[in-house]
């Protein structure tokens, strides 16, 4: 072990990244952080979708007033949506 390199043996430090194998403490931490971050991103993506659904359920605008292409336009009763529907049906 080398005390100046965080306890990582020299050979292992130059050859990291073998799939499925954890070779040092630093790499273990990196793997844990990587998958925790992936999990965080997944949760963020899911929260975006669930928030859009919640806002639509609560009758709030989810597209900053841009009705074209909005997935809840048909059922939306906000003033912008009513105007947009009026134009679209003309």
């Amino acid at each position, binding site marked *: 072990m080398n005390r100046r390199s965080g306890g990582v043996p020299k050979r292992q430090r130059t050859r990291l990244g073998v799939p499925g194998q954890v070779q040092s403490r630093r790499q273990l931490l990196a793997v844990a952080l*990587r998958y925790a971050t992936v999990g965080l*991103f997944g949760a963020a993506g899911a929260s975006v979708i669930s*928030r859009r659904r919640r*806002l639509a359920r609560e009758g709030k605008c989810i597209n900053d007033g841009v009705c074209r292409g909005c997935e809840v336009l048909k059922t939306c009763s906000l003033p912008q949506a009513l105007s947009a529907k009026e134009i679209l049906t003309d």
Partner: protein
Amino acid sequence: MIRFAYIIIGIAVLLLSSGIASGFERFPPPDFESGYVLPSPATPNPRQDIYEYVDTIVLLTALSLSSYLVLKKRRRRFIFVLSVLSLFYFGFWREGCVCPIGAIQNVALSVFDKDYAVPVAVMMFFLLPLVFTLFFGRTFCAAVCPLGGIQDVVLMRPVSVPQWLESGLRLFAYVYLAAAVLFAATGSAFIICRYDPFISFFRLSGNFNMLVLGVCFLFVGLFIGRPYCRFACPYGVILRQLSRISKWRVTITPDDCIKCRLCEDSCPFGAIKIPTEDWPAHDYNKSKRRLAFLIILLPILVLSFGWIGSILRPVTSRVHATVRLADRIYLEETGRAEDTTDASDAFRATGKDIKKLYAEALAIQARFGLGGWLSGGFVGLVIALKLIGMSLRRQRTDYEADRAGCMACGRCFEYCPKEHSKRKQAKETMGGSR
């Protein structure tokens, strides 16, 4: 020399076309007697919905291709071609919007405003490059980002930046990120979009000051590789940190490093780390003492910068329209301003209570106070960690690409003799098999 001439001509053409484009409107705006100036559009005109999906698929394809070219194919030429294609698609065709850099603000706003929903395409643009960076390094910067692409095209005679200056200048990107998140989270402004230096080129129109800033960046970019990416890009700050823990990464040599030093000066971004020398014992003890001091200094720096951020709230909160309006109304009500503005006239016409406006402005200022603590503390933390990082020394036996700073452009591959012999071998094997 010929390349230099092409670049200068290219910049001149872009500049001229931007000027011409900003001079012509399909429907000329009326002359406003009140002196009203039409604001520059912050986003391009709406497109058909199908483009959202097309853009996401193109982004995913470009990221996959870039990762393949960087990590498997290892050819600079292909990476550059993909970079130019991305520049034309995401830059000139899509007019730089949606971009992952600006998406930071949408995400920040959605975190702090429970009634704001980020469009799914924007979220994809924000997340996809991050996920790819977690696994393959900064392959987004390598060949997908249009802002990186336009700077890469003009890079002609790279000059190395001293490490101390590089570290110092890089702090600006962290401050910019903190400010962008603060202003987006408080619903004040999307400053990344507003101060994007290359958007005028992509849209061939826009704010003249931003056009000048873009030209300045491109001019500096002739000699200093990707100045915006290295010293200003707030998304790059996030990518740097994620790249540190990426599963796969760029290696200069495909095999064992023979320390021929040919790659030493090949990186225009200063992202090649040279092998370290033996560390003298007295130096080691000195560094240990410095490290202990910096660890004690860390909370002090965090709190100091947090405090600075909070006391700046009267200034920073003026970016918010409501605070500006309340300030203006206060000046008019107390007789310190004799004339009125369109905004103050419009507010009075609504008949709303002034006290309510003041209360709202105070509440926003309080949010800026808290945001100032957080963003200032973040900057303080970054400075402290940077100082700690500078006092740590890791032993390296080979020439390595800096995990955080490497933009995976692939220039160093071409300098490695091992790479060339590997290619030659592969060619011979292919020739033999035929």
